[in-house]
C-alpha cells in the first residue's frame, strides 16, 4: 500500500485526521455544508486532481485518445517534467513547473462515449469519487453542453475540449464553463471572404446539414455569412445522424442549379458524405459555367484522413494546425512529436491549452476556488499558445483568436500532411457582439464553488 495512490485531497486530509485522531474508529461525521468553509473538492494535501473526460469508445475514440495524450503531456509539463512545451512561450509566467500552486498535478480519466448521459455519469464519478477539482475534454457539443451544466451544478470548473456549436457559449453558456475552441459563427465569418475570393460572389449554395444541434448552428452561420457576401442559398437539406450512405441526398444536388455544396457534417458523417459527393462526380461538374465546388466548414485532420484523397482542394476552417510556424506551436509540436512520434491534432492542441490556461488561472488567482478561477480567466488576454493574441471574453467565456482557413493538400508528403493553411483570418474579423442573434438567449449566471 502506498500513499501516493490518489490525491483525494479533501478526502485525504479527512482520512489523515480520522486515522490519526484515533487508532481505529472515532467516526467523523461531515456534511457537505459543514465542509463548506472552502469549496467543493478543495485540495488540502500535496496534490491536486484534474478529471479528463474524453470519448474512449464510440466513433470519436481516436480523437479522444489524442486529447488524452495532450493532457498527459500537459500534466508532465505542469509538474516540471519533459521540455516544458508551451510553458516557455506562454505570455503569462505564473506557472513555474512545480505543479499548480505548489501541488503536484494528478489526474483521473473517464469515458464520455460521446453520449450526454454517459459523459455526465463519468464526470460525476470523477467529482464525487476521485475529488476532481476541474473537468475537461470531450469531442462533441452535446457532451460539452451537458457536462458544462453538470459542473455548474456541482461547483467545479469545466474547460471544454473540442466543441464547435454556437450554443456552448451561446444559449447554453454557464459561469463555470470555458471554451478555447472556435465556433460555428467564427467558421462562417472566416470562410466567407476566402470563398468569395476563390469562387466569386455569384454562387448558388446547396447545404447538407447533420440533423442535430451542431449542424443547425453551423448551417446558419455559414449561410448568413456567405449570403452577406452575395451568395444564394438554393436549398438546405437535413440528413439523419445515423445515415451512412448519402447518395439519396447527393443526387438531388446534381439536378439543382447549385454550383457549391456545403457539407455541414462532422466525423463519420463528413467522411461518408464527402466520399459520396466525390464519387458522384460533383467535382468534375460544371454548372452555370463555373466549376462545381464542395466546402466542409469544420475540418479535422483525423477526419480528413478518413476521407483520403477526396479532401484535396476542399476548403474548410480549423482551430489550429501543426504546420503553424509561431514559437508556441513549434514548441508544442516538438514536445508532442518527440513523445508520441506524430504531430498533434487540433483537438489535442485545444485540450493542452485548456489545461495550461486553467493551471495558470489558479496560479494567478492564488486559489483553486472555482469563483477565483472564473475571475482570473474572465477577460484574460494571453499569447504564445499557438493562436496569436487571444482574449477569454468575460461576457460569454469564449476565446477570441485568429481562425485558420485551410484546404485539402494536393500533394501530401505524409499521412499527417493533409491540410494546408490558406489564410489566417485575423481575430477582428470573427469577433461578434455577445448578444449576436446566433448566440441569443441563456445567461452565464453566477459562479458556483459547490459550497
Amino acid at each position, binding site marked *: *500500500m*502506498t500513499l*501516493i*495512490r*490518489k490525491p*483525494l485531497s479533501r*478526502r*485525504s486530509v*479527512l*482520512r489523515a485526521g*480520522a*486515522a490519526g485522531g484515533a487508532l*481505529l*474508529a472515532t*467516526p*467523523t*461525521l*461531515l*456534511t*457537505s455544508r459543514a465542509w463548506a468553509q472552502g469549496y467543493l473538492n478543495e485540495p488540502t494535501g500535496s496534490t491536486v486532481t484534474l478529471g479528463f473526460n474524453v470519448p474512449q*469508445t464510440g466513433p470519436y*475514440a481516436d480523437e*479522444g*485518445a489524442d486529447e488524452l495524450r495532450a493532457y498527459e503531456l500537459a500534466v508532465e509539463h505542469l509538474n516540471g517534467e519533459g521540455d516544458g512545451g508551451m510553458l516557455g512561450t506562454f505570455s503569462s509566467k505564473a506557472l513555474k513547473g512545480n505543479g499548480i500552486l505548489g501541488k503536484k498535478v494528478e*489526474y*483521473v*480519466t*473517464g*469515458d464520455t462515449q460521446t453520449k*450526454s*448521459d*454517459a459523459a*455526465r*455519469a*463519468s464526470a*460525476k*464519478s*470523477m467529482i*464525487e*469519487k476521485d475529488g476532481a477539482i476541474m473537468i475537461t475534454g470531450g469531442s462533441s*457539443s*452535446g457532451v460539452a*453542453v*451537458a457536462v458544462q*451544466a453538470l459542473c*455548474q*451544478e456541482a461547483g467545479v470548473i469545466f474547460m471544454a475540449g473540442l466543441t464547435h456549436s454556437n*450554443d456552448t457559449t451561446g444559449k*447554453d453558456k454557464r459561469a463555470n464553463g470555458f471554451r478555447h475552441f472556435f465556433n460555428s459563427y467564427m467558421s462562417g465569418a472566416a470562410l466567407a471572404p476566402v470563398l468569395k475570393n476563390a469562387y466569386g460572389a455569384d454562387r448558388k449554395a446547396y447545404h447538407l446539414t447533420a*440533423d*442535430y*444541434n*451542431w449542424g*443547425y448552428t453551423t448551417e446558419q452561420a455559414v449561410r448568413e455569412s456567405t449570403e452577406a457576401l452575395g451568395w444564394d442559398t438554393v436549398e438546405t437539406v*437535413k440528413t*439523419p445522424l*445515423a445515415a451512412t450512405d448519402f447518395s439519396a441526398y447527393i443526387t438531388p444536388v446534381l439536378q439543382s442549379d447549385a454550383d457549391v455544396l456545403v457539407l455541414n457534417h462532422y466525423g463519420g458523417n463528413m467522411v461518408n458524405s464527402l466520399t459520396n459527393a466525390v464519387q458522384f462526380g460533383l467535382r468534375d461538374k460544371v454548372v452555370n459555367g463555373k466549376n462545381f465546388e464542395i466546402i466542409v466548414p469544420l475540418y479535422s485532420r483525423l477526419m480528413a484522413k478518413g476521407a483520403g484523397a477526396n479532401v484535396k482542394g476542399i476548403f474548410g476552417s480549423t482551430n489550429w494546425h501543426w504546420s503553424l510556424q509561431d514559437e508556441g506551436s513549434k514548441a508544442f509540436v516538438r514536445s508532442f512529436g518527440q513523445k508520441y512520434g506524430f504531430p498533434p491534432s487540433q483537438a489535442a492542441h485545444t485540450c493542452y491549452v485548456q489545461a495550461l490556461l486553467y493551471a495558470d488561472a489558479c496560479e494567478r488567482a492564488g486559489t483553486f476556488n472555482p469563483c477565483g478561477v472564473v475571475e482570473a480567466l474572465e477577460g484574460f488576454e494571453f499569447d504564445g499558445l499557438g493562436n496569436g493574441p487571444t482574449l477569454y471574453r468575460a461576457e460569454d467565456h469564449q476565446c477570441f483568436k485568429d481562425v485558420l482557413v485551410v484546404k485539402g493538400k494536393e500533394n501530401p508528403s505524409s499521412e499527417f500532411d493533409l491540410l494546408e493553411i490558406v489564410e489566417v483570418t485575423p481575430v477582428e474579423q470573427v469577433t461578434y457582439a455577445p448578444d449576436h442573434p446566433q448566440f441569443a438567449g*441563456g445567461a452565464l*449566471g*453566477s459562479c458556483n464553488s459547490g459550497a
Partner: protein
Amino acid sequence: MFGLDKKDTSLFFLVVVLVALAPFLLNPFPENSELAQFNAGYPDLMQRFLIFGIFAIGFNILFGLTGYLSFGHAAFLGVGSYAGVWMMKLLTMNVIPAIFMSVVFAGLFSLLVGYISLRRSGIYFSILTLAFAQMSFSLAYSVLTPITAGETGLQLALDDPRIIGVSAVDGSIPAANLFGLPMRESFELAMGGWLFTFNAGYYLCAVVMLAAFYVAIRIFRSPFGMMLRAVKSNQQRMNFTGVNSKPYTLAAFVISGMYAGLAGGLMVAMDPLAGAERMQWTASGEVVLMTILGGAGTLIGPVLGAGFIKYFENIFSKINDNVLYEWFSALPDGLADVLVFVIHPFIGKGWHLTLGIMFMLIVIFLPGGIMEGIERLGRLFSRKKKSETPSRAAPAPAE
C-alpha cells in the same frame, strides 16, 4: 408479513438491509489503498444501481412473466425523463411532481405502443417495439429539438418559469429537492481509512426502489401474475378456454412501461438532464441484457444484472495505464511492463471488450444468469438440498 409469504418476506428484508447498508458494502476498500479504484460507494453510481434496478424489475414483469421480449423499453424511460425535466422547468424543483408526471407520461405512451405492438407476438412483437423506440429516438434527436433539445439534451435554464418554485437563486438554478432537502446533500462518515457517503438522493431512490420491488413481488404472486405466466406457457390454450389474454398482457406492458418511466423520473430527479440517447436501441438492449444476465423471471436477478453492467461501465472505463503502473509499482519494471501490456486492452477504452467477454461467459456457462450462479454456489455449500430436484433458476424465456 405485508401479504408476503415467509420466503418472500425474508428476501424482501434481505434487499432492504442490502440497500440501506450499500454505502458501507460498496466501499469495502480503504480510501488510500490501491483497490479503492474498485469502490462503487459514491452517490452517482449507487443511485444508478437502484434506478436501473427499477428499470430492470419493471422489464422483468413483462419479459419474465409473459415472455414478450420488448426491444423498445428505453423509449418509455426517455419519455419519462423528458416529462420530468419539463415539470422542473415549468412547475417546481421539487422532485415529486417530476417523478409523478414521468410515470404518467410513460404509462400513456406505453399504452399506445403496447396496444399496437401486442397485436403480434414473438419476434414480430420485438421488432414492432424496436421500431417505435427507434422512431422516438430519431425524432427526439432531430425534428423534435424544440421540445427535447436534441443533441445537447433537455436541461434547466435560469429563465425557466417554475411557476410554484423560483426561477433562480443568486444567479444559479435551484437544486432538485424533496420539500427542501436537496438531492445532492450528503453526509460523510470517516472511520479509520474508510470514507462512507450517505446521500439524500440515494435514499430517496432506495425508498422508491423498495416500494417498486415490493409491488413486483406482489404482482409475481398474484392471480394476475399467474395469468401472465399462463400467457407465456401456452397462449393458445388460454384463448381456447375462452380467456382473452390481451388485456392481461397489455396491463403487464403498461405496468412495466410505468416502471421505466419511474426510473426515468428518478434519473432526472438525481441529475436534471434528459438526453435522447436514453431512447436508442442500445439502451433498450441494455435492459434486456441486464434482465437476462441477472436471471429472467427471478425477482432479484434483474437488479443484480443492472448492477453488474453499470459497475463495469463506470469502474472499468476509468482504469488507465497510469493506474495499472501504480498497482504494479512494487514489481520490477520489466514485469510491470508485461503485465500492463497484457491487461491494457481490457481496461479504460477497452472496457467494452471486457463486457462482451463477460456476457459470453455468463450466457455460455450460466444459462439462468447470475441467479443460477448464486443458486449453484448455495447448493455447493448446503448439501442437504442436493436431493431436491434442481429447479432452473430462470424458466426459459419464450422466444
